[in-house]
């Protein structure tokens, strides 16, 4: 059934076309308990702002197969609909269902940290990112190079928001050691130096951020083609800073 309607059906078509929905409606009609059919059916809706259609389908997928789809729904709430409180609930449930699992190249704690950062729950976010790093390095400080650059980036942003310039620089520089063109890490490092009134270094990092964005470097997450990540910047923000 899955081969016929999904693997050799919907997945052979464009999800923005009518055949995609036809295949998925067919399998749902015949067998309404296949979670992935609902998740796939929701894709074009979530990517085009139709949340009233998309989210009940995601809910159904989670209801039918919570182990596989709870973290994914948490990801959608964090990145696509900016429902940070709802996302935290999903990732905490996912942690119970599939402990220390991952979603979209990150641990559940990464997304929980990101949501707490955006909600202003800074102490919780610190704890989340520490645990995220612990999972990535397996608690071995010698494995610091295993830490994802966007963990370091958002940890740096967190300390920037907490007015801790020293730690903000430490983590943003860690991110840049791994990915020197990271536009956002360069930009927010410039903002830390601005706060310290170190205008030479501010302009140095603004210049790198601008050049990196102009060459189409990004914070390098798969879904930025559809939606902006928290604290993602654009060229006009850098230009406004340069002109201040």
């Amino acid at each position, binding site marked *: 059934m899955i081969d016929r309607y999904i693997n050799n059906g919907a997945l052979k078509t464009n999800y*923005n076309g009518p055949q995609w929905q036809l295949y998925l409606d067919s399998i749902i009609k015949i067998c309404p308990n296949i979670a992935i059919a609902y998740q796939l059916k929701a894709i074009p809706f979530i*990517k*085009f*702002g*139709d*949340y*009233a259609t*998309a*989210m*009940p389908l995601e809910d159904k997928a989670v209801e039918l197969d919570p182990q596989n789809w709870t973290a994914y729904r948490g990801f959608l709430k964090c990145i*696509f*609909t*900016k*429902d940070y409180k709802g996302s935290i609930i999903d990732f905490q449930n996912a942690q119970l269902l599939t402990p220390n699992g991952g979603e979209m190249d990150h641990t559940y704690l990464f997304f929980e940290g990101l949501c707490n950062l955006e909600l202003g729950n800074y102490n919780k976010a610190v704890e989340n990112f520490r645990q995220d790093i612990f999972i990535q390095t397996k608690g071995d400080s010698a494995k610091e190079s295993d830490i994802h650059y966007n963990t370091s980036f958002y940890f740096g942003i967190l300390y920037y928001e907490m007015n801790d310039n020293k730690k903000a620089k430490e983590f943003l520089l860690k991110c840049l050691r791994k990915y020197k063109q990271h536009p956002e890490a360069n930009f927010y490092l410039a903002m830390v130096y601005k706060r310290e009134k170190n205008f030479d270094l501010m302009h140095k990092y603004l210049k790198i951020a601008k050049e990196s964005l102009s060459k189409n470097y990004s914070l390098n997450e798969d879904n930025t*083609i*559809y*939606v*902006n990540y928290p*604290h*993602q*910047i*654009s*060229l*006009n*923000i850098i230009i406004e800073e340069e002109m201040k």
Partner: protein
Amino acid sequence: MDTAFSSLPFPCEDKNVMYYQIGAKYPESSLSILKHAQAFTSNYNAFSGSGYITFRFIVDCTGKILTRIQVLQTDENYKKYYFEKGFVNLLYAFLKKMDKWEIARINDREVPLAYHAFITFKIQNGKIVNIIP
């Protein structure tokens, strides 16, 4: 809402292409749009409600939004909901001021192709708190 129809200028074609298929996400970050939207709406009366107001539309091959707009509204639990008409109209007025839409490009060359795009305003207690995408 606005049901006026505006057709595509020749030789622009609508082949049902989405903004993300041609890398045409609005070139300003959500943070930047949010700042401008909050400034634009700051002088108006207080509104109420929490959830999402989405405008879906077509961008023609000169980078202009067609006035054929679809408006979708939900509460914060993604259930259908209707915000005050004045609020929706105010956000629509802001949308019409967004004038940096990309022109469709394939392999770095401009092509006479319209594309479908959207902007969602996330609302909390009548205030804009986030922009999607």
